[in-house]
């Protein structure tokens, strides 16, 4: 515990659903604060809920921690509490050293002022003294890559340039703990690579980094361990690859909000993927669809796999592949697709469809209805892992 630089002990935070009640509670709490009465912040009043409960973790010098979770799980709230903008309702946060937060890059930039003037102002807001700024000014400008625009009012900057300038200032403050909240998503690829390099440089010099992102490859690159938080659940702490798997599984359960169409006589009752809804990368993938038929009917069937964003990775149909028309007999039956699994770890979804004999309309269509999670954590940069080898000279 001695060399821990950031210690979070049993921290909880509550919020209020109703604006009116929230104001009322605010007045109550503030009056109690001013009069020095105890607020009893560990109790819930009506309309209040715990944004997250009982969170504990610690961070050593130079260590990094990824924070993963769906929207609204309290990641930003956690950062606001770590930076001292909000106070926890229960528990205790201890920070030994200075803290820098990249929560909103470029907050406090004045549009009429030039980049140069804004660097000085923003750096002072983040706690730098004039001498330090003078000393690091060239470095900041150089890192942002905005030399030729530095004397232009920032209102004429593009949004990417804006973020680059803000990020450059923030990383040059060199805090003991740095909070990074999804800011690397902006900026072009070149700047992103530069930022990642800067972060690892900071870590080598003893800065601990907390990173919030929905881009798993970023978390994977930066953080060894991660925290998975979800509303209404206890936070999980573990290795980054385990937590990424966990996130993928959780996100997959929310995919099936898409169109589902069935005819009266033919229904797909169940779709099994490898008997479980999970598969390890590099093995055989079996997608088995069971149907229930009331009256004999002829048709074709197809199965497709989609990426998380809905793009179709592959779509195989019996009619397109020259198979004969299939007759669905009365009663129940199944068809299955067996393929070599070349998918990279991630969340995918499966569609199942049946077309009539003349290929005019769908009899059954379950579009992106079935989640498919390929676990394995590492290497989450693409969809397909093709057999390959390297050559060099």
């Amino acid at each position, binding site marked *: 515990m001695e060399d821990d630089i950031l210690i979070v002990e049993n921290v909880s935070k509550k*919020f209020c659903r109703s604006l009116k009640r*929230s*104001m009322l509670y*605010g007045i109550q*709490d*503030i009056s109690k*604060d*001013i009069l*020095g009465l*105890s*607020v009893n*912040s*560990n109790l819930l009043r009506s309309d209040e809920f715990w944004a997250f409960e009982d969170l504990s973790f610690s961070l050593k010098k130079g260590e990094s921690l990824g924070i993963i979770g769906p929207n609204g799980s309290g990641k930003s709230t956690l950062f*606001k*509490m770590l*930076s*001292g*903008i*909000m*106070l*926890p*309702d*229960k*528990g*205790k*946060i*201890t*920070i*030994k*050293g*200075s*803290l820098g*937060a990249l*929560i*909103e890059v470029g*907050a*406090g930039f*004045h549009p*009429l*002022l030039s980049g140069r*003037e804004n660097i*000085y*102002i923003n750096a*002072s*807001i*983040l*706690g730098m*003294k*004039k001498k330090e700024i003078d000393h690091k000014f060239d470095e900041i400008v150089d890192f942002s890559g905005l030399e030729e625009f530095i004397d232009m009012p920032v209102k004429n900057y593009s949004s990417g340039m804006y973020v680059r300038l803000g990020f450059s200032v923030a990383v040059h403050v060199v805090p003991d703990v740095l909070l990074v909240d999804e800011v690397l998503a902006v900026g072009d690829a070149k700047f992103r690579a530069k930022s990642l390099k800067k972060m690892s440089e900071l870590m080598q010099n003893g800065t601990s980094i907390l990173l919030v992102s929905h881009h798993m490859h970023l978390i994977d690159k930066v953080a060894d361990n991660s925290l998975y938080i979800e509303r209404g659940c206890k936070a999980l702490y573990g290795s980054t690859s385990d937590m990424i798997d966990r996130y993928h599984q959780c996100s997959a359960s929310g995919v099936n909000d898409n169109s589902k169409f069935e005819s009266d006589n033919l229904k797909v009752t169940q779709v099994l993927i490898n008997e479980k809804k999970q598969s390890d990368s590099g093995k055989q993938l079996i997608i088995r669809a069971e149907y229930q038929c009331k009256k004999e009917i002829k048709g074709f069937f197809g199965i497709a796999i989609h990426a998380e964003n809905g793009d179709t990775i592959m779509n195989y149909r019996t009619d397109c592949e020259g198979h004969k028309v299939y007759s669905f007999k009365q009663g129940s039956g199944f068809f299955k697709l067996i393929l070599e699994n070349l998918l990279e770890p991630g969340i995918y979804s499966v569609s199942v469809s049946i077309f009539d004999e003349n290929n005019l309309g769908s009899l059954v269509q379950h579009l992106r209805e079935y989640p498919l999670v390929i676990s394995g954590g590492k290497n989450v940069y693409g969809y397909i892992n093709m057999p390959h080898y390297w050559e060099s000279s």
Partner: protein
Amino acid sequence: MKKNIKVYTPDAMTNKGLSVWYNMFLELWGSRDLIWRLIQRDISVRYRQSVLGYVWAVLPQIATVALFTYLSSHRVFDMGQTQMPYVIHALWSLSVWQLFSTCLIGCTNSLVNAGTLVTKINFPKEALVVVAIGQSVFDFLIRLIPLVVVMLWYGFLPSWNTLLIPFVLFFVILLALGVGFIFSIITLVLRDVGNAVNIVLTFGMFLSPILYPPPVREPFSLINTYNPFSPLLIATQDLLSGNVLLYLNALWLMIALSVVVFLMGWRIFHITMPRIVERA
């Protein structure tokens, strides 16, 4: 190596005792660089997109005084006898009033104008409120230029007591800052305050002996007795003209009051900030 250890708990802000004041002072003192930089920013940005620039700081006041001088010289209103020539009396008093009112308005809106800075970055937010004072003081100094010109025109020589005026003005600012601290946090959640302040200040201008001399007859003299701003204003007028300070007791009372209001405002601001940010 010196390490600053920060601990955040639910009751971090409500710890009693003198150490809290010490910490609050340290925090404010530590942000003096930032305050100075933000003051410079505000002043340099203020009139950047304008041709007349700083003239706008003095124009409203010159127009008001010109109008009232015209009305009083044509006996539309009987302004009564002022200790100094009327134009000087009105220009000076209006400047002091403007100093107070722009300070208060500036402080009240300071947090709202700062936008996401308040909710996203942790730094001593007191700095933002204090910065609003800088702009007002700067404008006040500019407004002294036409006043000096008018004094030269009238051949009016201020008394040596004038040197004590900054002392009184300090407490005028302290009063505005104390009230401004509280108004600024309320404005973050309730925008009504900003509008209300504007209206009250408009009335306040006419309820203080600015465009007329301090009334001595009942019931009008009650305005002096119960308007908390009057003793401070009259003191500056007396100091400028070299008169004896008439309402000395009231002046000391107001000075004490402004110190108390300032300290209370600051403390309340400090305590409530985290709770307000949650709801802003």
